[in-house]
């Protein structure tokens, strides 16, 4: 027999996501998480802000890294650049590094590389979270300012 009503992904998914969120909240509370999470509404807001940061498409496009000093000073360098400052025998040194030294230590480099990559990923997600919180804060500040009438000027100032 044909169903009359279509099954809508857009209806099912929010139910599943809400159930998973609620289960997560209960688990965190039972394990001694922040007492504020007893309030489902507060938890929902916190989850929403952090999930927005974690789901963000471009964690390469963030404000905070632009405000930091030189990228070289904070960003884990996962790539390997072989170079030499010597102008004459430099190319020979680079050749030896690439063809002799690198094959010997490649296993160690590749072992650590994955962990550096994960650290870089977490750094960016944390920066994205901070940015989301700052945006949220700015929005709330603007709403608050719009609601509270400006203080009257003090006479004689």
């Amino acid at each position, binding site marked *: 027999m044909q169903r009359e009503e279509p099954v809508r992904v857009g209806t*099912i998914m929010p139910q599943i996501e809400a159930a998973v969120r609620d289960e997560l909240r209960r688990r965190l509370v039972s394990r001694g998480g922040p007492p504020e999470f007893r309030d489902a509404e507060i938890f929902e807001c916190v989850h929403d802000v952090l999930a927005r940061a974690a789901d963000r498409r471009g964690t390469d496009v963030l404000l905070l890294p632009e405000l930091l000093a030189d990228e070289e000073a904070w960003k884990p360098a996962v790539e390997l650049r072989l170079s030499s400052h010597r102008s004459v025998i430099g190319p020979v040194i680079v050749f030896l590094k690439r063809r002799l030294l690198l094959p010997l230590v490649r296993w160690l480099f590749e072992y650590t590389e994955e962990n550096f990559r994960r650290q870089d990923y977490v750094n960016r997600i944390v920066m994205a979270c901070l940015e989301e919180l700052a945006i949220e804060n700015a929005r709330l500040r603007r709403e608050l300012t719009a609601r509270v009438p400006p203080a009257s000027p003090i006479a004689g100032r």
Partner: protein
Amino acid sequence: MKLACVIHRFGKDIAGGSEGHCRLVAEHLAATHDVTVLTSCAHDHVTWANHYPAGESTDGLLRVRRFPVAHRRDLARFRDISRVVFSGRASVEDEDEWFRVNGPDVPGLLDYLRDHGREYDRVLFWAYRYATTYFGLPLVAGRAVLLPTAEEDRLIHAGGLAPFFALPSGYLFLTPEEAALVADRAPVRAPSNVIGCGVDPIRDEGRDSSSRLAEHGVADPFVLYLGRIDPNKGCDSLLRHFSRYVAGGRTIQLVMAGPANMPILEHPAIRALGFVDEAMRDALLSRARVLLMPSPYESLSMVLLEAWNHGVPALVNGRCAVLRGQVRRADGGLYYRTSAEFGAALDYLLDRPDDARALGAQGRAYVDREYRWPTVMAKVEDILARVTPSDERRTTNDEPNDERRTPNDERRYRRS
């Protein structure tokens, strides 16, 4: 029309991905056009070792012209240059170098395009990430139609891609998400259509496949992963999610069918079949309760379309915008972002068979609506008709491609 289809490798036994897509579209085009496939002699996409003889041959209605690969891929160099390019700190030279090392390096094909490209009415290029497209397309940009097969991976953020994506005279995208991704890099002002991929209706539906499956140790009920078993396809996280799921007490088998590029967890509930033939694929899809698609990077999931063609609902990685978009547009399955969502969504599909069947049927209706060959080829023909070939370098305001070229871009294209 006289058409050329440029693809990095081409062969009857090379299925799936952009190569499979190229073959299918080229074969359908050959029914009404004079089609030549321009490709390398490579079969192996890792080494690019020459395998097929160079020169001209025929493959059904297709003329195939193969050019030898100049050298194999240097895998150590490829890993090193990938680290540089994906670190976000690469120069234009580094990015060019990445495309050169990625290969395949087929100088004969580029020479042929330079000397004879204008003898074709349109030249279609598949997969921007390969050297055949990246260095070949600029040589015939005035008549080039690009099928980027772009995914939201780290390469798409390479700075030098913006001028490249502005070059083609027409675009064929696989999904609206792919179109948006490319448009993020360069405004798509040339004609474009979203075509996906054609799927034929199933024949022999209802044939009993249970004995065939039992021979391979596949028992009802099972959920299915179909395709290359590879960490890049999200299979490591799928195995983690699934083992957590069955550890919770659920009795269900995960069947993984496809060549494995990674170790597969030894678990009584996981059955790995290795490569399976077409008949076995059909048998699996005819009995699977759910198709699992964990890939984080996709430009179009053809397996998803196959599953819907069989009326199987899907559970896909929601972090992949393409998969999430496909599932939502089709109303053909659910998606997850975390292990907990994976479990809850799979519970839903297994515990509510009526809803799961309805989602699968809606998926099939979506395939009927969007992905039958006449619909797909009408969109391809529309782009071929709307592209106006030009041999001149574009300089007018109406044709913005060359306007946006920087000196670096000019250097890049001259060098290629």
